[in-house]
């Protein structure tokens, strides 16, 4: 498998005005293969968002380097689509215009753009809502539009920061299955941040289990089960248990 994303010896330290330093990311090295689905899993505050923002180019490492296809990442770009926790749709644009808002799409002829937009909307099951404004949609629908918007701009990588955390259990599990379907249809490389163990095991090829203060990757676990997965199968539960143990080890070693 070729490396799509590569972060090496990454540190990100936030210095507060009073001079206190937070080592949000401390010595993290991670490589993510093309078409791979990797989750960053860990408790709140362990640096998941910080790490994702380095890949997105929203933020720069204090030390270390991040690469996309061997080229150093220095800024955000259309090659990396991002899905935010708070949907971040443009309230003044209709659903179809949100999905078509990407710069790559805007550069295309209008007819072509319309086709891509309706294809993306169909993929997330929202063709009928093309003319709606974001505030007229439910939370789950907004997140679908947000996924469609990121994909429509034809990125190579999809970075998702707890995209389903704010949704109710029903909607969340619906979107999880849709994401598995989308991933297998588009073969995008996906980095998915979550603090939910079951979600990580359900979706990922590999799970990077992180610990807090300093934020580190404790272990990377392969989930070698065919998708879609059955959360009630013994294999699934065994992996879940292992992930939980690693997470707990991290927490209890923090206490010493």
């Amino acid at each position, binding site marked *: 498998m070729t490396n799509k994303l590569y972060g090496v010896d990454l540190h990100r330290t936030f210095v507060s005005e009073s001079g206190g330093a937070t080592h949000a990311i401390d010595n993290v090295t991670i490589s993510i293969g093309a078409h791979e689905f990797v989750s960053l899993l860990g408790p709140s505050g362990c640096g998941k968002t910080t790490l994702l923002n380095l890949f997105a180019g929203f933020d720069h490492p204090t030390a270390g380097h991040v690469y996309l296809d061997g080229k150093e990442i220095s800024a955000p770009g259309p090659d990396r689509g991002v899905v935010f926790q708070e949907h971040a749709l443009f309230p003044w644009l209709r659903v179809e215009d949100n999905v078509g808002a990407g710069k790559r799409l805007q550069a295309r002829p209008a007819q072509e753009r319309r086709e891509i937009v309706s294809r993306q909307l169909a993929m997330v099951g929202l063709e009928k809502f093309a003319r709606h404004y974001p505030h007229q949609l439910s939370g789950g629908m907004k997140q679908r539009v947000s996924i469609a918007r990121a994909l429509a701009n034809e990125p190579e990588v999809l970075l998702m920061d707890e995209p389903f955390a704010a949704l109710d259990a029903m909607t969340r599990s619906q979107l999880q299955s849709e994401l598995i379907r989308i991933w297998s249809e588009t073969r995008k490389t996906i980095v998915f941040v979550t603090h939910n163990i079951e979600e990580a095991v359900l979706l990922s090829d590999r799970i990077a289990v992180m610990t807090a203060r300093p934020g580190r990757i404790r272990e990377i676990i392969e989930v070698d089960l*065919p998708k879609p997965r059955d959360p009630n199968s013994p294999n699934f539960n065994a992996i879940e248990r292992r992930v939980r143990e690693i997470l707990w080890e991290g927490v209890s070693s923090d206490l010493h």
Partner: protein
Amino acid sequence: MSVIDKPSSGTAMDKASPGKPPGTRFRLSFPYFLIVPVIAIVIWETASRLELLPAMLFPSVGTIVTTALDTLTGWWGTADWYSGVWYVHALASAKRVIIGYFLGGVSGIVIGTIAGMFGLFHKMLDPSLQLLRPIPIVAWIPLAIAWFGIEDQPAIFLIALGTFFPTYINARHGIRYVDPVLIRAARMLGYATSWELFTRVVFWSALPNIFTGLRIGLGIAWMCVVTAEMLAVKSGFGYMLWDSFNFLRADLIITGMISIAVVGYATDRLMLLLQHAVMKWER
């Protein structure tokens, strides 16, 4: 990797109906808004008939209505030298408001936008503007007359000044406090330059604030025109008020006040219509 069945994506739960929400706009209901004016008119008329003050200073409702209609139509001549000339004064005030409001509003939005976008500019300019802002617009009148003489220019100057501050402050605020996650969304979609981010995100997300500033500014513009016309000009509603006061004609004074209320209200509604037309995404 196994091939995955396409789950039916049009299912249940988190999907609202694609239809429009039922309209509530044209529902007929009891005109509650009339209660207060009706009571006020009854009290006024009663007080007027008690003749505690001379009728000239406290005219009956009928007199006021006749005078007001006469300023519009010239049918009865009860408004004397204001008979049938309402439009002349309305146009005189409106012209000053339109020009002053345009100048003040445009410069408020432009300078507010620049101050919102560029921190250094803001640091240079804002403290001085904040120092000028507490000066009541009336306090500028002597200088305005000294600089611009009488008639239109001093009035336009005051209106522009009065409009400038609220549009500047609101535009600056809207531009400055745009949601950073929307900026990130635009950046990940490939937009990088300040100009792209401004036209794609910042401007649109500041629009509600810009309109707030414009509407506050419009109210202040009418306030300013009346003030200016009372002192520096010989036409318009403000002049009509002050002139009628000199002749102790309360019916004309009240006609002038009602005129300002009606025209001010109408222009505010127009601005609201414009806001709804531009900001289609807000209900």
